[in-house]
């Protein structure tokens, strides 16, 4: 049972890291580093020199740095897949009688297989923008499922957690709305990124500011929705911290953390718009969005357990 807990925590952490690495592949422009799938230039270990490239693949596509970046991403993806498989195996072994652990795990595992397949579609379609967004979207769903199971596993060992706390009862809509708008915001963000890349490809000489101007309405939608999310998070903080009886440390800390992360998102977002489209900041902007979603999921799960205040 301890082994299950270790593995579900490990899988969750690794999946977060994989989202980071996936984002890194994207900003490094290494998505097509290997033009084939699952092998890389027809080899299980990428070529180290141009002579090793099979004749049916255009050698112009070979860039040793990009090939190895993409290869590391795939290798790490395989490790995460393995970790989730072991977690599923242990979960079914010990907790097959608990549907709230069994089904999220099975779904996470199924979606992980689907993600691997989407990875191959990405290569086949030479990074089709919709597929890239789906690839990220399902990664976010997987990590939320894993977080949920991690938390439930924690509660199995700490059955009294959250039982002393009482939160407002009518918060389900707030959590739902937040999760939905956050996912939508992430999709809008990827549209902006995709748009930037497309404009850059066709106009290699334009500067960042002009690039942002060429984006059109998407960037406003992203900002307006961001503002809306900020308000919702402030409301969440108020309800959890101020309108609850004896809120747990987890809830108070995650609420404060949420506001801090939102602030970081506003700052990084503005830096991207007003200064320069800096790849490293782009990467963290996306990764932190996945943390925010995770926090919402953790809070929802804790809220559900507690005694609720009728209003």
């Amino acid at each position, binding site marked *: 049972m301890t082994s299950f807990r270790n593995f579900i925590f490990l899988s969750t952490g690794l999946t977060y890291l994989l989202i980071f690495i996936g984002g*890194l592949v994207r900003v490094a422009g290494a998505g097509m580093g290997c033009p084939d799938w699952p092998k890389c230039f027809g080899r299980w270990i990428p070529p180290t020199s141009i002579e090793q490239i099979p004749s049916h693949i*255009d050698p112009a596509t070979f860039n040793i740095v990009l090939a190895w970046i993409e290869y590391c991403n795939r290798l790490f993806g395989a490790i995460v897949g393995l970790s989730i498989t072991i977690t599923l195996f242990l979960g079914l072994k010990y907790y097959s009688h608990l549907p709230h652990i069994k089904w999220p795990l099975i779904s996470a595992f199924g979606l992980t297989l689907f993600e691997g397949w989407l990875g191959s579609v990405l290569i086949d379609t030479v990074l089709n923008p919709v597929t890239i967004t789906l690839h990220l979207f399902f990664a976010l769903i997987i990590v939320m499922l894993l977080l949920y199971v991690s938390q439930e596993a924690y509660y199995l060992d700490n059955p009294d957690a959250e039982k002393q706390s009482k939160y407002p009862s009518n918060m389900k809509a707030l959590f739902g709305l937040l999760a939905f708008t956050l996912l939508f915001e992430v999709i809008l963000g990827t549209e902006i990124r995709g748009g930037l890349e497309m404009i850059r490809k066709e106009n290699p000489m334009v500067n960042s500011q002009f690039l942002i101007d060429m984006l059109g309405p998407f960037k406003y939608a992203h900002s307006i929705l961001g503002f809306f999310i900020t308000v919702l998070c402030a409301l969440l903080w108020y309800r959890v911290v101020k309108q609850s009886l004896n809120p747990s440390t987890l809830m108070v800390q995650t609420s404060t953390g949420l506001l801090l992360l939102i602030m970081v998102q506003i700052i990084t977002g503005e830096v991207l718009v007003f200064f320069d489209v800096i790849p*490293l900041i782009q990467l963290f902007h996306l990764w932190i969005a996945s943390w925010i979603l995770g926090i919402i999921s953790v809070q929802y799960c804790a809220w559900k357990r507690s005694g609720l205040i009728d209003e």
Partner: protein
Amino acid sequence: MVPGILFLALGANWVIQKADRSHDIPIIKEVPDFIFHDQTGRLFSNERLANKITVLDFMFTSCTGPCPLMTSNMTDLYQEFRNVMEVQFVSVTVDPLIDSESKLKEYADFVGVDDDRWQFIRSDLESTKDLKQNGFMLYAGELPQGHAIKFILIDQDGNIRKYFDGTDEASLAVLRKDITNLVKELRS
């Protein structure tokens, strides 16, 4: 937590920079000074390489070996980069005794050159040999027969950046990408 994030940020930054620099093409050497004449009789010296991305080859008009294929490939490039004014093409004749200015002009017309983005240049045999052997490090023992089939990519500062096989499609695919990257570099 903070050291972990810092570590990730530094690692990611390193990877991004590596990826950025992976598009760079190393500088091999500078093209030495030379003064040739183009097909219209105007001077063409190494100064004309400045602020242009140049693809240069050695050829002669009456060549029947690999030259027709090289010329056809160069023509394709010339047409493809029609709208990119930073890119120019230079063909150096290794048979200046036969290839007079008028002969080169005739040849340029024949392959469809209609602007000054592609120059055919000539000098005396000695200067040609010197430029080829010492300037471009290509064998120039028995001109015109032993001329190279290389396309040479030269940057805006007159540096040789890379050699390509002018008869090989795969090699030319790499050349196309490298030209684009150098133009981007020049424009930024």
